[in-house]
């Protein structure tokens, strides 16, 4: 499988994994390993100084995984920019998964604030991976101002509903000149495979892996499904039809016409 290239950096895996919601650091580490992913997302939060605990992310081998900080919690462009700068100060690199979600209930992204933040961050030299609604026009505007990817949602985050936005994502893929990473809502390997089959460059999965009874095994399942979907996309799938067609010959039957 040819490599995924984001902002000039090459990756063998087309599956990005979020680190939230795992029952323990150990379970998370096993799942990340099984997923074969090379990019993992993390959030930035205040240290709880009242009861200081060990850094739960020390389980992540930063030589093996690219840490991709998100701006979760930001409700405006301003908050997202501030979080991005703090994240950059904390990591060697300047990549950021841009999330601006004013709505605390469905955690859906704000198109206007996301675009505004992206413009500022790109100017400041960030590699910006914006999380957006499946909005082809917004996706085009973001790639035009220089984001490294676009990350349209398949369905609201954490719902496991799958690729509800397929029709719009097909348009986004058709118009994209940066990698399209389907983020949020992919609940099953078949959802991830479907996203890759229609030409998505990669997918990001968190809840579906972290909340499975066996996260490591589910991570493996998503790994295989993403590869399957990509191979299918390149293999040139035959189109579907309404009329049936035999897979066995329609001649040479044991009867005389």
């Amino acid at each position: 499988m040819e490599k995924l290239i984001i902002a000039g950096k090459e990756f063998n895996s087309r599956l990005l994994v979020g680190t939230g919601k795992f029952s323990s650091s150990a379970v998370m580490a096993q799942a990340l390993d099984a997923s074969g992913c090379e990019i993992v997302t993390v959030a930035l939060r205040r240290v709880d100084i009242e009861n200081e605990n060990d850094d739960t992310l020390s389980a992540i081998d930063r030589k093996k995984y690219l840490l991709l900080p998100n701006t979760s919690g930001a409700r405006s462009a301003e908050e997202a920019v501030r979080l991005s700068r703090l994240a950059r100060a904390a990591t060697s690199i300047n990549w950021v998964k841009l999330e601006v979600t004013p709505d605390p209930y469905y955690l859906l992204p704000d198109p206007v604030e996301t675009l505004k933040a992206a413009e500022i961050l790109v100017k400041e030299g960030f590699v910006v991976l914006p999380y957006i609604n499946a909005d082809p026009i917004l996706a085009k505007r973001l790639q035009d101002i220089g984001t490294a990817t676009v990350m349209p949602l398949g369905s609201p985050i954490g719902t496991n509903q799958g690729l509800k936005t397929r029709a719009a994502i097909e348009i986004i893929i058709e118009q994209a000149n940066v990698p399209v990473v389907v983020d949020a809502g992919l609940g099953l390997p078949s959802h991830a495979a479907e996203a890759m089959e229609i030409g998505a460059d990669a997918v990001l999965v968190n809840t579906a892996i972290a909340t499975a009874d066996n996260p490591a095994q589910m991570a493996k399942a998503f790994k295989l499904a993403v590869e399957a979907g990509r191979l299918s996309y390149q293999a040139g799938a035959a189109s579907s039809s309404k009329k049936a067609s035999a897979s066995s010959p329609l001649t040479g039957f044991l009867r005389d016409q």
Partner: protein
Amino acid sequence: MNTLKINGSERQFPDGTPGTLADLLKKLNVKAETVVAEIDGQIIERDRFSATKLTEGQKIELVRFVPGG
């Protein structure tokens, strides 16, 4: 007494303490290498923690990476 607002809540310290940001982290048992600090909206690079003196009334944010999607 010396008052600092740390991560949103006020904290009292004996006069003259904590001297530096590094001292504060030690006092709070927070590993310096895992956190990022912001003082009154200004980001402080990790290598300047010990050189950064703290003064009465500053707003200090100590943040770190946590699991997230």
